[in-house]
């Protein structure tokens, strides 16, 4: 039997190891590149007027996106008000009441599938059920679209977090004569509180950077969002419109808006991750 030399195997191993280091470095470099560009170009567009002022026409100097900042905030808030309670209820059902039932398995399955449905499809759907009957774009529709995105995420994290609550806790509460709903609400929820908060924060981070579902629903508007029943300004669609425009000052404003959105989303993500890590410790 002829001995196979060792060095080709060693070489292949070293090559792949080097490739793995390079790939990891590449991934990090891309992240750093994107963040650096956003920080650098965004920071130069940012000033006090940018946060407090109103949009200006192309060519004019100054101006800000106060309306879009407020609009994004309102639409996201609306999405949370609708999506979080429903999502939590679904999660509670899955974790506490649905154990072993076929219906629960089906719902769980669909929750997972729904997380993967493209956000633009959700936007399209809300367009057909809210915008078409109403006859105009509205902030309400935007909120509804985002709430449909947040719902499955909240449902799944709620279920996961409730599943972490030890069973003896439930049993002792029930043994003291507390009804099921009371046990869930006052004992299980309290035990899982910070986990639930983490889930909601992550879900908010996910929707606050969303653009596609807002294109067909909230649209955009150069005015102050007086009510949510008309087209509502928001940061992400503003970025889209401004970036696609040929005007330098609008493009600069788009970078400023990108900066705000990125900062917000990353801050939310990092904070919720830190919370989660504290829990597991």
């Amino acid at each position, binding site marked *: 039997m002829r001995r196979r030399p060792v060095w080709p*195997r060693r070489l*292949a*191993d070293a090559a792949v*190891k080097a490739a*793995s*280091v390079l*790939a*990891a470095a590449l*991934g*990090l470099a*891309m*992240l750093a590149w*994107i963040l650096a*560009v956003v920080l650098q170009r965004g920071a130069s567009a940012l000033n006090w007027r940018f946060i407090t002022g109103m949009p200006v026409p192309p060519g004019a100097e100054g101006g800000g996106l106060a309306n879009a900042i407020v609009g994004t905030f309102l639409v996201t808030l609306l999405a949370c008000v609708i999506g979080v309670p*429903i999502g939590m209820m*679904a999660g509670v*059902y899955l974790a506490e009441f649905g154990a072993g039932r076929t219906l629960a398995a*089906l*719902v769980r*399955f*669909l929750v*997972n*599938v*729904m997380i*993967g*449905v*493209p*956000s*633009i*499809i*959700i936007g*399209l*759907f809300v367009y*057909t*059920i809210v915008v*078409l009957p109403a006859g105009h774009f509205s902030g309400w529709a935007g909120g509804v679209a985002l709430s*449909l995105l947040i*719902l*499955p995420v909240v449902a799944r994290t709620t279920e996961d977090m409730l599943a972490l609550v030890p069973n003896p806790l439930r049993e002792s509460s029930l043994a003291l004569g507390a009804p099921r709903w009371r046990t869930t609400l006052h004992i299980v929820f309290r035990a899982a509180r910070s986990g639930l908060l983490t889930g909601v924060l992550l879900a908010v*981070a996910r929707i*606050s*950077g*969303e*653009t*596609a579902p807002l*294109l*067909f629903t909230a*649209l955009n508007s150069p005015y102050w969002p007086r009510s949510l029943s008309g087209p509502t300004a928001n940061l*992400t669609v503003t*970025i*889209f419109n401004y*970036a696609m425009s040929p005007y330098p000052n609008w493009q600069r404003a788009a*970078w400023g808006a*990108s900066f705000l*959105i*990125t900062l917000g*989303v*990353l801050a939310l*993500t990092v904070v919720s*991750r830190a919370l989660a890590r504290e829990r597991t410790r």
Partner: protein
Amino acid sequence: MFVLVAMTAILLELFHHSRVSLARFGWGFLTSVAWNPVTREFGAASSIFGTIVSTVIALLLAIPLALVIAMFLVEVAHPRVARPVGYGIELLAAVPSIIYGMWGLFVLAPVLAEHVQPRLQAIVGGLPLFSGPPMGIGVFTAGIVLALMVLPFITAVMRDIFTLVPPVLKESGYGMGATTWEVTRKVTMRHGMRGMVGGVFLGLGRALGETMAVTFVIGNDHRIAASLFASGNTISSTLANEFTEASEPVYLSALVELGLILFVVTLLVQIAAQMWLRRLKRRLGADL
């Protein structure tokens, strides 16, 4: 409960609103390349083509990268290095897609146009795949941006699989004198192949439906070009670009039908991925 209703409602609504176009174009909608709002001729072929091509490029780039990154995180790097690096890779998933779009259009595209694409042409020149003016925007760029976006998702699944392989199996490999790469290729990958396929499916679902980043960089042109450097479009970019302009009922209906196609396809991909991963979970007895 609500989730169940919502999913059914989405399907029904999209179906309902695309009936005008369904009735008018029938199955030909899937194969027609026409897209002319003036003559009201619509076909989905170019959008479907662009979606498939950009997704394939993204996966071709992302799968090997994700594999070696996962290997780096689990087998090669010291935990003290692996943790922050893994965190950074996961953060790639948190960056909003519109930011990828901005970066792709204003930063990556010029770099590609000036440095990468001309060199590629110089190396493999003559192939129709890389012909045409290097504009920076197009299907190729869209694929790169998509690859970066699905990378964290595929990496996460792969990393789980690396850690799920029973240590005994790996140790027997090392005990036989195998190198790290050999253990990865012949033990881990064989053991976790099904899980990796599931992870790829998750990435596939993401890439298919991604909208904003692609809309920024793909050029939005209704045509099927042989060159990867030419501009094209995808289902979702067409929707994002033209929906608010669609005034004719037929136009609108055709766009909704595009959405319906995308929804059905991603639904199938998701369902397949979920079933696959669930079966796997039962087999390995661990949480993925």
